[in-house]
């Protein structure tokens, strides 16, 4: 109930002077408030930045995030700078300062009213200004406006800093995964480079027809593109397997038998007593088209001076060679034609037959070149698959620590299917019994990686693939097929999978 009388004081002569006085009185308060605002906003920025950094680091522990630490540092810095910049930019106005001082000093809007009416010359406004200045004069900015941070902010800052330190110091389980991914990407890049290299080499091979070069190039390019997008080893292996399968489709399925037939015919011709025919056989065996042409032309010239009996004998030798080349119909037909024309002694027919033989030989040579290129590309893909598989195995082993017992994931005798080291159809083996990754998962076995000729040896006891002396393909297939049949009979493989495995080996046999 007490009624307080306002203080008496002398009114200034000019209201403008009073307004200036108010401005001057508020200036130091405003400066102090600005500093306090900068400090408080900066504190808030630091706390917000550290909190965001903690959040980012926490996220990086839940999901693989390369560069999370840099993002955390960036966010914290940006937050701090934003808060500081905002504090600098939004300097409190005089009106705002007056209001804040009113609140802090419980002046009941004296200062804010005085500031608003600083130019008013009404007596009561002058009195009000002086009253406000008198009340303000009782305090000093330094004593009222503290620059020390509040306790709650210090506590918050400490808590956030501790959490941040823990997040930085404790090992992040996702780092191992990130390293694995980086290693995988490096391997992938090197394998893509290798595939690109072989692609260029094949593109430069003139022995292959342009159409086949284009097809091989397309397959390899697609493989490279898909490999670049592969997220993990399984995808990469799938891409490589698909590319290998596509390359295999370009092969002539009869190429091997044709080559054998051609070799047999060549061998037969080379054994001839006729020097020109023998030279033709050798040229045919080596794929020397010029030599073959020369030898056949010489033979044609020689035939004109030969007796019918000699021609018949020569025709018989050629006929034998043609019979040896039955599995190569074009060559066999050409040789039959040559034998007949030699027997007849007709120069025109001989010339036509020679052309036919040369054409068949050239075709065989091209086919062999194509197959060779496909083998080369396929081998590169196989090497890539093996390299990626080995790197995946290594990283998986590292990721799983030491708990994996020897033989579970790497035991060559259990899960590695025969033929995987061949380099062409290296995939498709049954799943490893020890890794529990599902029945139909493909398992890849490292083959011979590196330069030089790939040599395959088969260990009949355990099916491992080792480098060593060359073993014929047919023998390897037969051994592996027998092992597979034994394994199928002695295991609990479902019947449909038994058929699948048997079909697989049957298909391999057909490629001999």
């Amino acid at each position, binding site marked *: *109930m007490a*009624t*307080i*009388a*306002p203080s*008496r004081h002398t*009114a200034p*002569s*000019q*209201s403008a002077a009073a307004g200036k006085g108010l401005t001057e009185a508020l200036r130091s308060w405003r400066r102090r408030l600005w500093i306090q605002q900068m400090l408080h906003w900066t504190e808030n920025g630091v706390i917000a930045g550290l909190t965001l950094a903690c959040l980012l680091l926490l996220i990086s522990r839940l999901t693989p995030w390369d560069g999370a630490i840099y993002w955390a540092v960036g966010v914290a810095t940006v937050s701090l700078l934003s808060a500081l910049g905002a504090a*600098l*930019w*939004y*300097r*409190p*106005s*005089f*009106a*705002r300062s007056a*209001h804040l001082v009113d609140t802090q000093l419980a002046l*009941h*809007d*004296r200062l*804010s*009213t*005085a500031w*608003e*009416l*600083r*130019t*008013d*010359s*009404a*007596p*009561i*406004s*002058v*009195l*009000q200004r002086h*009253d*406000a200045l008198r009340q303000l004069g009782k305090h000093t900015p330094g004593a009222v406006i503290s620059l020390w941070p509040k306790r709650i902010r210090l506590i918050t800052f400490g808590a956030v800093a501790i959490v941040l330190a823990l997040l930085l110091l404790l090992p992040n389980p996702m780092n191992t995964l990130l390293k694995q991914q980086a290693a995988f990407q490096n391997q992938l890049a090197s394998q893509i480079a290798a595939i690109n290299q072989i692609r260029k080499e094949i593109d430069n091979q003139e022995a292959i027809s342009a159409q086949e070069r284009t097809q091989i190039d397309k397959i390899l390019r697609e493989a490279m593109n898909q490999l670049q997008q592969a997220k993990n080893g399984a995808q990469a292996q799938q891409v490589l397997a698909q590319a290998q399968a596509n390359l295999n489709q370009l092969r002539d399925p009869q190429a091997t038998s044709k080559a054998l037939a051609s070799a047999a015919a060549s061998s037969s011709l080379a054994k001839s007593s006729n020097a020109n025919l023998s030279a033709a056989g050798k040229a045919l065996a080596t794929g020397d088209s010029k030599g073959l042409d020369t030898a056949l032309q010489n033979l044609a010239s020689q035939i004109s001076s030969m007796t019918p009996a000699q021609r018949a004998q020569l025709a018989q030798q050629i006929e034998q060679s043609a019979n040896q080349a039955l599995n190569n119909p074009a060559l066999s037909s050409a040789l039959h034609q040559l034998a007949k024309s030699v027997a007849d002694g007709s120069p025109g027919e001989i010339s036509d037959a020679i052309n036919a033989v040369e054409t068949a030989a050239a075709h065989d040579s091209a086919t062999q070149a194509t197959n060779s290129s496909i083998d080369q590309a396929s081998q590169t893909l196989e090497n890539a698959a093996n390299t990626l598989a080995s790197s995946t195995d290594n990283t998986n082993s590292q990721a799983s620590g030491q708990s994996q017992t020897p033989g579970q994931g790497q035991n060559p005798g259990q899960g590695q299917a025969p033929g995987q080291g061949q380099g062409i159809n290296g995939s498709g083996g049954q799943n490893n019994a020890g890794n529990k990754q599902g029945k139909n998962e493909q398992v890849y076995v490292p083959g011979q990686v590196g330069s030089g000729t790939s040599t395959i040896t088969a260990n009949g006891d355990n099916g491992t693939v080792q480098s060593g002396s060359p073993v014929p393909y047919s023998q390897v297939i037969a051994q592996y097929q027998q092992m597979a049949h034994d394994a199928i009979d002695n295991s609990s493989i479902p019947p449909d999978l038994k058929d699948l495995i048997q079909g697989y080996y049957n298909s391999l046999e057909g490629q001999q």
Partner: protein
Amino acid sequence: MAKKSEGTSPLTGVNPTTEAQPEDPGVQIENEAATPSGPLSIKDGEGEGGEAEGPGEADIQAFIDIAQRLEHELCSIVVGQEQVIRELLLALLAGGHVLLEGVPGLGKTLLVRTLSDALALKFTRIQFTPDLMPADIVGTTIVTEQSDSNSAGSRRVFTFQPGPIFANIVLADEVNRATPKTQSALLEGMQEHTVSVGDATRPLPSPFFVMATQNPLEMEGTYPLPEAQLDRFLLKVLVRFPLARDLMRIIDTTVGTQTLRAGKVASGEQLMQLMETARAVPVATHVKEHAVRLLLATHPDQEDAPEQVRKFVRYGASPRGLQALIMTGKVRALLEGRYNVSTEDLQAVAFPALRHRIILNFDGLADGITPEDLIGTIIEETEIS
């Protein structure tokens, strides 16, 4: 570097720096007829370039002195009702009428009578009853004998016999017991300070205050005041039961042989001057904005209204409520030793100024919600800019 706008207010669109005069344009209480050249017209502040207007420091000091003495006189006689006396003074110095609500025997009539004694003003008391007629309040025209100088006889003429409303302080005791027709007889006087009887409108004396009382308990046979009439009361003051120590003082002061009477503190002219002084108190823009927010928050259809208001209020306060906030806030500021109205003043006067202007809906009445609850919520939830 300072980019914070100091200019136009977001709520009113008024630039505070250009609004030099803190007059409240909405206030329409007509007391311009009051002469500023009273005994208190000392202009200490006229040294401001010689163009100063309004009250000076001496006026304000006189305001403080008179208000202090008046409050002291009232408190010495009416025991235990300090809050009521303060609110009564707020309304009196703001030039408004007061509705006192309380159970019988709390000293409402004594308070008003003591006030009239202290101010040496003409005081009338009207006991409102159901058979009270408007003419009993405003007066009536009667036939009287007048001497005729021309005929040396007398003649009958109609003369106006003023009713009890023609006084400075009118105590409308138990105003809700009269019929609405009779209650409405006060309307014109309260708002216009005039009374129209027949074809003549007669001014009421200045100052003119209506202090009405009503009993919240005995509601049977009463006619609750309509909203229009409630709105004309500047404040509604709740007279609460005194505390035990106050009751002890009541025994000492009222049951003894000594009869206390208030001494004269101020005249009617001085009171008018005090009212003029109070009106000159400046109000900052943000304080006005706060008053507007408080008022708007009483309206359930406003976005910023608290949830309770939306749920329990049928109608909010009228613009007269805003005038009441500002005017009584000015008086309170002076009484608190300040030359400016603060938001705290508004919050302090919000209860008596708004409680009779908030009309509850059925839910509010059924749930026992009181306007005081809502005003408290409004004050809590209305932020100060």
